[in-house]
């Protein structure tokens, strides 16, 4: 029996063992006689620390069983892509983030982007909204309508999507935190119902990652990790039962990476969070296949071109393993890791900012070669301000050039079979599995946040990286490598509409004056009680937003009922 298995396995290897032996021998001779030790100075590593050889051969992937380990697109183990025909079936969605000022201001930008070829909307919220404060709250001073759009009530969501066909194009909402997500998702669903659009027709994504609340971004008032994680799960569970085409979570590797992690840590933390979510929803009585097919991910692609492509491929493989082996998911869609990519904001320089167009294009190309489902290409002026209309247009054009002029979308996973890329994919997958195991050995993703371990990992990486930039070990063109001789670059900066705060406050005052206060209080009180029960809070939040309770009022309930947590940084 065991002999048989071995024979079958051997037959399925890509290369004949004798050929591998010969290649190995020839490579040794080549190294000795041709390369003669001239392999470059020092050691070569990928950005996440994988040693890189001078040259790869079939020997480096001799253990691969093609059908089992790589396979076909749209089939297990999904290394080559989640859909059979990939970009021939549907091009990646050109998604550019917009969001500033009042909902009315952002609505105009939406319409501009859609007119110019964007195929979905993507909105970023201002900090008071993300952190659960109304526009007239003193905590929000100086932030209203800056770096994102202000949302206070369901009226604002209605204004934001006025004239946008939300039943036809997908809506991405960068809600960041679960506490924001539950409110905004409730508003979005309630708005659709008021418009007569069935919830089944709504497609889109919101972020909803408790790591954003408790590890990646700090703030004045932070909910405890367990509470934030509960709200994350509430949103996912509610959507799985009511919004079948909605992705209620986009596990945010992106911002972990911006804060300070390797590509391996980025993917591992996101998957560890998805594992914890799945365990919790199963505890609540859901079946894995009820919700797993709508879990989505969000990656950050830096400049290490091949490592990033390998990461995308490896992440699909590891997710498939988790779903199949650990959760025994049956529905094929539960095994698909679908992800959005944004190019790496932190790799963009302030010096010679136009160079950023090249960086972002290279990162965007890696995303497409990695099989991303949607893409946001950062604009060259990000180290100065939020993108101007002009720079946002260059980002869209960059995506369109990749889509139509390079022909890279014509065949599936074109780098498959590269000895290097396949080797790197396996290495990345193993390191991702190892880091997930490390997180789980410390009690899982919620525990490593509670203990501050994850914060230390991020902080240590950021600190070491800064040292490496300052000592020149990590080279950045124009900064510490061929330092720029341009004294000052004049970049037109985007200015947030100054009147936004005033306009938003006025609307809010009017709303508070005209709504039925008793109805608001009743809904808020029910929500308050339910916070202490083992129930999903979404239906109660939806009742509150329909009564015109504001986002800040609802989140104040969370702060009061769940308490606040001391962010473990020093």
């Amino acid at each position, binding site marked *: 029996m065991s002999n048989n298995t071995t024979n079958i396995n051997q037959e399925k290897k890509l290369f004949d063992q004798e050929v591998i032996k010969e290649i190995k021998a020839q490579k040794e001779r080549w190294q000795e006689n041709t390369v003669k030790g001239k392999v470059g100075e020092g050691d070569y590593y990928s950005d996440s620390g994988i040693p890189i050889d001078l040259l790869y051969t079939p020997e480096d992937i001799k253990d691969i069983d093609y059908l089992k380990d790589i396979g076909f697109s749209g089939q297990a183990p999904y290394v080559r892509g989640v859909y059979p025909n990939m970009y021939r079936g549907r091009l990646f969605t050109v998604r550019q983030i917009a969001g500033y000022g009042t909902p009315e201001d952002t609505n105009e930008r939406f319409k501009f982007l859609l007119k110019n070829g964007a195929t979905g909307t993507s909105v970023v919220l201002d*900090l008071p909204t993300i952190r659960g404060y109304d526009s007239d709250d003193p905590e929000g001073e100086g932030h209203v309508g800056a770096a994102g759009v202000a949302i206070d009530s369901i009226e604002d969501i209605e204004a934001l999507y006025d004239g946008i066909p939300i039943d036809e194009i997908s809506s991405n909402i960068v809600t960041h935190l679960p506490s924001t997500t539950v409110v905004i998702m409730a508003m979005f669903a309630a708005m659709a119902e008021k418009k007569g659009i069935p919830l089944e027709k709504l497609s889109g994504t919101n972020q909803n990652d408790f790591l954003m609340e408790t590890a990646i971004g700090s703030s004045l008032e932070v909910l405890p990790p367990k509470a934030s994680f509960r709200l994350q799960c509430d949103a996912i569970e509610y959507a799985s039962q009511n919004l079948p085409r909605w992705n209620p979570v986009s596990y945010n590797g992106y911002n972990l990476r911006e804060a300070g992690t390797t590509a391996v840590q980025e993917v591992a933390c996101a998957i560890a969070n998805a594992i914890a979510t799945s365990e919790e929803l199963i505890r609540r009585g859901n079946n894995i296949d009820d919700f797993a097919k709508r879990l989505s991910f969000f990656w950050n692609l830096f400049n290490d071109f091949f490592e990033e492509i390998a990461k995308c491929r490896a992440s699909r493989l590891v997710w498939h393993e988790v779903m199949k082996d650990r959760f025994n998911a049956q529905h094929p869609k539960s095994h698909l890791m679908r992800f959005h990519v944004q190019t790496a904001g932190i790799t963009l320089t302030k010096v010679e900012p136009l160079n950023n167009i090249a960086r972002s294009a290279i990162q965007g190309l890696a995303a497409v070669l990695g099989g991303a489902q949607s893409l946001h290409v950062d604009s060259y002026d990000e180290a100065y301000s939020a993108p101007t209309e002009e720079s946002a247009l260059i980002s869209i054009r960059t995506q369109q050039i990749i889509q139509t002029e390079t022909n890279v979308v014509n065949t599936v996973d074109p780098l498959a079979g590269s000895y290097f890329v396949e080797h790197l994919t396996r290495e990345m997958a193993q390191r991702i599995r190892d880091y997930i195991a490390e997180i789980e050995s410390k009690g899982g993703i919620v525990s490593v946040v509670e203990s501050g371990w994850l914060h230390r990992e991020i902080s240590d990486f950021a600190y070491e990286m800064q040292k490496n930039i300052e000592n020149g070990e990590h080279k950045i063109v124009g900064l510490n490598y061929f330092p720029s001789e341009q004294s000052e670059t004049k970049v037109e900066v985007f200015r*947030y509409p100054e009147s936004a705060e005033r306009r938003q406050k006025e609307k809010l005052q009017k709303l508070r004056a005209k709504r039925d206060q008793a109805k608001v209080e009743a809904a808020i009180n029910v929500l308050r009680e339910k916070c202490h029960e083992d129930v999903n809070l979404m239906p109660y939040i939806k009742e509150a937003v329909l009564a015109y309770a504001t986002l800040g009022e609802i989140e104040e309930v969370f702060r009061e009922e769940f308490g606040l947590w001391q962010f473990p940084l020093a």
Partner: protein
Amino acid sequence: MQIKVVMSKLGLDIHWRGALVVSRMLRDEGMEVVYLGNQFPEQIVDAAIQEGADVIGLSTLGGNHLTLGPKVVQIAREKGVDALIIMGGVIPEDDIPALKEAGIAEVFGPETRIESIADFIRSHVKNTIA
């Protein structure tokens, strides 16, 4: 005497990477740094008083530099705090004159070498050697 810095994220701005890395590297430069996390101007000044800080470091990328930055200076001076007040983050060049006018001693953008922040602090903090 060791230079003492209180470092704070300004208001709601969530991006802690820069503030924390600068804090750690100023410690490497021999300074004592108290990282306050996110705070509003009033609390930042109170912390500076409590800690007897020589320097107040403010970090923001959220676009609140013009509204909250000058407020820190104003409250500090009202309360008799003469600490050096500096700022870092993504801040448009055009806004820097207004910040300096308001009493922010220096504004450090992305790509600043941390040792140049340390040098600036050492040469501007009165009667202290670190």
